């Protein structure tokens, strides 16, 4: 009997060892490139450190400098908020397209492919294409505006302090709108049809069906879109770097491009780490707010 337990125990240990071995490579990567960096980042933000000097604890010095003295930080901060604020516009547009595509319309899948096509593309290339669209001489927009007589002189969209940020945001929306549409489409298709049939029998008008059935049932998908929009403020580095590199002045500076410039342009890794902490906190706060606005636990993992 004892031998049998021992055999079972050994087998169980071997199995456990195997499971650990299977998990280890992936966990090591996440530990190295997600968990440890996150903690290190926070520590670094309270230190004075550069590759040549030993680290020294300086408390909130970087945060003080950032909040009280750094105008560029504040501009990047507000630009990031504007960037995030544009996401709802894109989500509403995407919802419109998703509603049009989600029907028995002939060729709906073709439209879906076309709208989604821009999402998996290399953002660097997208940035170059749109720079060219906005170009003063050979660009599409100037040609349209000039030939229709709206403007006399060509406009330098990306060189203008007022128009550069909206111009880059339009490009960003063009690229991600397909992803929002796909997420919303998946949400729409998971709404049980009998709800609509019941509403129709009850004589509910189309508007009521949309506001009473479609929108409430779409809440998890809409929350997800909001989170994607928030994360987008981090991942938009490529687009801004290529199209304007934060310029003119700092008119299109986002926190993420400022982090890059502070860290790898001026080798102020410690200061860049402090900005990263601020942006990450901003992200967390806004995610919690979005979750709360979506009526709580909207992002909860479904048990199945």
């Amino acid at each position, binding site marked *: 009997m004892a031998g049998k337990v021992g055999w079972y125990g050994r087998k169980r240990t071997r199995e456990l060892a195997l499971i650990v071995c299977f998990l280890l*490579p992936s966990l090591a990567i996440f530990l190295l490139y997600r968990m440890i960096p996150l903690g290190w980042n926070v520590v670094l933000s309270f230190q004075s450190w550069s590759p040549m000097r030993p680290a020294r604890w300086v408390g909130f010095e970087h945060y003080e400098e950032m909040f009280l003295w750094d105008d560029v930080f504040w501009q990047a901060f507000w630009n990031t908020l504007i960037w995030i604020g544009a996401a709802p516009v894109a989500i509403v547009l995407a919802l419109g397209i998703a509603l049009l595509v989600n029907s028995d319309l002939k060729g709906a899948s073709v439209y879906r492919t076309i*709208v989604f096509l821009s999402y*998996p593309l290399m953002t660097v*290339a997208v940035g170059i294409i749109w720079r060219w669209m906005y170009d003063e001489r050979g660009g599409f927009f100037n040609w349209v505006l000039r030939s229709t007589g709206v403007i006399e002189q060509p406009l330098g969209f990306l060189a203008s302090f007022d128009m550069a940020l909206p111009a880059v945001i339009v490009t960003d929306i063009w690229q991600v709108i397909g992803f929002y549409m796909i997420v919303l489409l998946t949400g729409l298709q998971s709404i049980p049809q009998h709800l609509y049939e019941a509403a129709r029998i009850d004589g509910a008008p189309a508007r009521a069906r949309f506001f009473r059935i479609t929108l409430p049932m779409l809440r998890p998908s809409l929350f997800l879109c909001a989170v994607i929009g928030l*994360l987008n403020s981090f991942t938009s580095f490529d687009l801004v770097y290529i199209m304007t590199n934060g310029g003119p002045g700092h008119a299109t500076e986002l926190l993420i491009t400022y982090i890059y410039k502070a860290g790898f342009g001026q080798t102020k890794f410690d200061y860049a780490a402090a900005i990263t902490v601020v942006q990450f906190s901003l992200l967390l706060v806004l995610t919690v707010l979005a979750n709360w606005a979506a009526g709580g636990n909207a992002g909860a993992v479904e048990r199945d």
Partner: protein
Amino acid sequence: MRRGFPWARHAVLVLVSAVMLLPFYWVLKTAITDENIYAYPPRLTPLDPHLFNFVDVWYLIPFPRYLLNSVIVSALAVAGNVVLNALAGYALTRHFPAKRLVLLLLLSCMLIPFQATIIPAYLISARLGVLNTHLGLALPLLSTIVCIFIYKASFEAVPKSLIDAARIDGLSEWRIIATVLLPLSKPAIATNVILAFIWSWNSFMWPLIITRDAEMQTLPLGLARFLSYLEDTTGALYAFVVMVLLPGILVFLMAQKEFIRGLTSGATKG
């Protein structure tokens, strides 16, 4: 659900499609134009289309080098994702102590955008001595949490009796994964391959930070470099853009279903 006015909906969708496709047309048109691309008014159709710019790209920049680096990094990322995610996904279908903790860890890691950790990630890579190497470029991309869960869901859909039968026949865990689970999880493998390829192929910020020599640069970096060197000169830049975009577009069109499923399942499963 049937609604009225199909032609009106077609009209709106055709307009939307035109807006989405216009930038592609504009860049393609420019890439095959040899006249001065800055001529005003711009031509809507190229006067004398030719492929001269595409040939030019090979002479103006070390295109083969960029391509080789991109292919190596993407191959490493795809191989890493397909193998490591399968192993981790399988482990998560089994019971073991602290499983909830591992799941929680993975789910919370998903909320950390990689861009938020670049500074320590750079410093860690420096300590590991992988700056400016292919391995360093690929290392953070080798495993993806979303893809682990895609494998997990796929493995869990395999009937338990099949696995038990294999186990009774004396197959080792490795053999069970390789000969029972993976052949039944082809869609999950396809999703892993496509997501890993698209993500690594497009990746820009990480290579920008950790490569130092032109020798190690990937295609997106080559594009950015080309842009800053040769701006305002030729249509070759746009030919380069077309060449870089084509593989991504082709892969996407061939495997649209797997790609979308990967994105949305990752999105809805947390």
